[in-house]
């Protein structure tokens, strides 16, 4: 039994480039969603997703049926994010609001790092989503990454461990810690009176 996504990646690996569009169809939203959870910036998330597809296309012949398709794609995504994250930390000044994606002469990597949300986008976000975004960005990088995969992509811990290259136990503890931190950051009442919780009719 071959997974439908694996089928597409195998066909791409065999040189059937027409299926590339279908692969983009399949992974576009999951990747944008993943990067958005990591950076909170829609523009940067889309740029990163594009970069993943470029890397995927370059590495298409390396795909083998031994790897789960999600693992293959999200490993590329994880490695890309490490590059972006390191680059961001190394050059914090690069987050210039003057940098625009329209600037054709701009170096692509610095463009990825340099894009930032516009005030209009910020206003457009719902209040709850804004609070959630702020809280997620407050989380340590490792916790945010596992949360983005465990909740955002509904992946099993074993798969997440494979993608991030960490033990399953670490994934579990990071998810636990991330949820606990989010509750504090969002002000969810951890000491609420249980009797006030929802009960049967």
């Amino acid at each position, binding site marked *: 039994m071959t997974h439908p996504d694996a089928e597409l990646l195998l066909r791409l690996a065999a040189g059937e480039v027409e299926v590339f569009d279908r692969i983009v169809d399949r992974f576009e939203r999951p990747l944008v969603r993943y990067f958005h959870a990591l950076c909170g910036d829609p523009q940067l998330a889309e740029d990163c997703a594009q970069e993943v597809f470029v890397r995927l296309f370059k590495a298409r012949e390396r795909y083998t049926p031994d790897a789960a398709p999600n693992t293959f794609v999200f490993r590329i995504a994880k490695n890309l994010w490490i590059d972006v994250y390191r680059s961001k930390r190394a050059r914090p000044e690069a987050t210039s609001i003057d940098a625009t994606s329209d600037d054709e002469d701009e170096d692509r990597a610095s463009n990825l790092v340099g894009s930032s949300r516009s005030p209009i986008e910020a206003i*457009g976000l719902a209040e709850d989503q804004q609070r959630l975004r702020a809280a997620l960005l407050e989380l340590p990088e490792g916790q945010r990454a596992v949360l983005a995969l465990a909740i955002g992509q509904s992946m099993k811990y074993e798969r997440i461990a494979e993608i991030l290259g960490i033990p399953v136990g670490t994934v579990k503890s990071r998810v636990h810690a991330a949820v606990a931190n989010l509750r504090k950051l969002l002000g969810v009442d951890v000491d609420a009176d249980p009797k006030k919780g929802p009960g049967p009719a």
Partner: protein
Amino acid sequence: MNCTECVDLAVHVLLGQEATEIAARWHEHRKSCSACGAEAARVAELLKRVRSYDAPPTRATFRTELRERLTGLGYDDLLREARPRDRVAARWAWVRHRVRTSTAVKLALAAAAVVVVSAVAWQARDERGTLPGELVGLAPAQPESPSAPIENAPATTPAPAVEPSPPPRGASRADVAFGAPDEVQDKTLAETAIDPTPPLPPDVLERLELATERLNRFATARHLLRKRLRGEADDGAGLSPAAETAMRDATRWLLDQQFEDGSFDPARFEGQPEARVGVTALAMLALQRGGVRGVPTGLLAQRVTRGMDWLRSTRDDAGTLGMVKGADAVTLFNHAAATMAFAERYVLSGRVDEALLSDAVLRLDDLNRQRQGREAQDGDVVAARFAALALEAARSAGVPTVLNLDRVVAQARAEFEGSIDTSLIASGSLPVPQFQAAVTAGAIDPYYTAAPVLRATTLPVPTVMQVLERPELREPSLLFCATIDLHARGGAGWATFEAKLLDELAQTQQRNGSFRAEYAFDAVGRAGGVLYETALGVLTLGVPVRVAK
């Protein structure tokens, strides 16, 4: 399990990451401890919020930009519109990549064997076809000929001179020779005027008449049901454009998730692998009706056939489709949903073996009884709902080999109706289990038989509408049943409910067409995940075109 463990495990269980046994123990503790129940609700609420955190829609230029980037990197040759020759080469490369040499040799040998056998068969046919026309002329000297019994008829019966009808224009001699015997035999039997059957006793005749009448009744009911399931019944209403779009998007998403073997894997979408049979069956129920209306054709028909074949292949020695463990809730859901899919397939296309369907119905009755005899489990309410719907589906489909099906269906329904305290109905304060039972009972009749029956347990319209208003009642199969019930009743109540329903479904439908799985506290819903929610979303949206008012 103690409270500390329960709190520690909450997030993992709610994310569907823990083993079934641990999750079951966790749920057991959560139900028995109000503090842990409240804590679980808070964690679930937080997870729901995080799940709802999504990126804005991707900008329209995403694809163009991506293509430009690849072109800029020198991949423009690869990404150009593939020519037919390239396509053939690519296909061949793919086949070479996928098929091992040994498999290719086996396939080639098999193909060669087929060619040889066909050639031999053709040769033999050709030889028979060129024989003199003994078969055409009913030559008595040919004992192996189909005309042999006629020859043995009493001598007092003059064998009429039967002239073979002239061959149709363009037909070969061989065609006539092979096509003639049955026709000639029929004519000869009719003309010899011999009654080969002795007279039947009156009681047998009476039973035969009753059976014939029953079969006729089934045939008529099946014809009407087929029209309704196809959305072609005269009494079916229309769908709003928004509902049609939502239904098409969800159907397309479902199609995209089907595996090559025909199945659907709930574990890919927040579900669990145990429910693979159940969600595949629900997807089949959604797909085999051909989308909004009609019957599946082309690719969709192939996918449905593949899915139904896969469902059939999951049957174990006891006849269970999708056995997980004993008669647990997910097993019952799997088997019931598969039986429902077979019953509807039987009505829609007739392409289901009656014996298979009969076995499935009998096994379903068996599993349902086992459930009633054991201790209650999480997920039983939903599983019992599917069991009742599936039994009614089989009864309405007219499965002729299960003679006591009426009684079986009545027993299944009595379980729901018998649990309701009718004195509480008017006050609108029914406990949740009784509310669920009443809504289910209200849906079974109208869905398959188009016969809304006002019963003592029929709930007032505003009470049924609570399925959309109270979060603890927001379960896709219950929503499906409430929609059937209220649509069958029609009027202002339905109009109000329909508007609210579409609004609710629009909120939970994602951009890719699927419906978010938000119901996390029931074993069946948890195991089914997004596929369960989406398939039921399609079925719910289709109620107005498939259920009579």
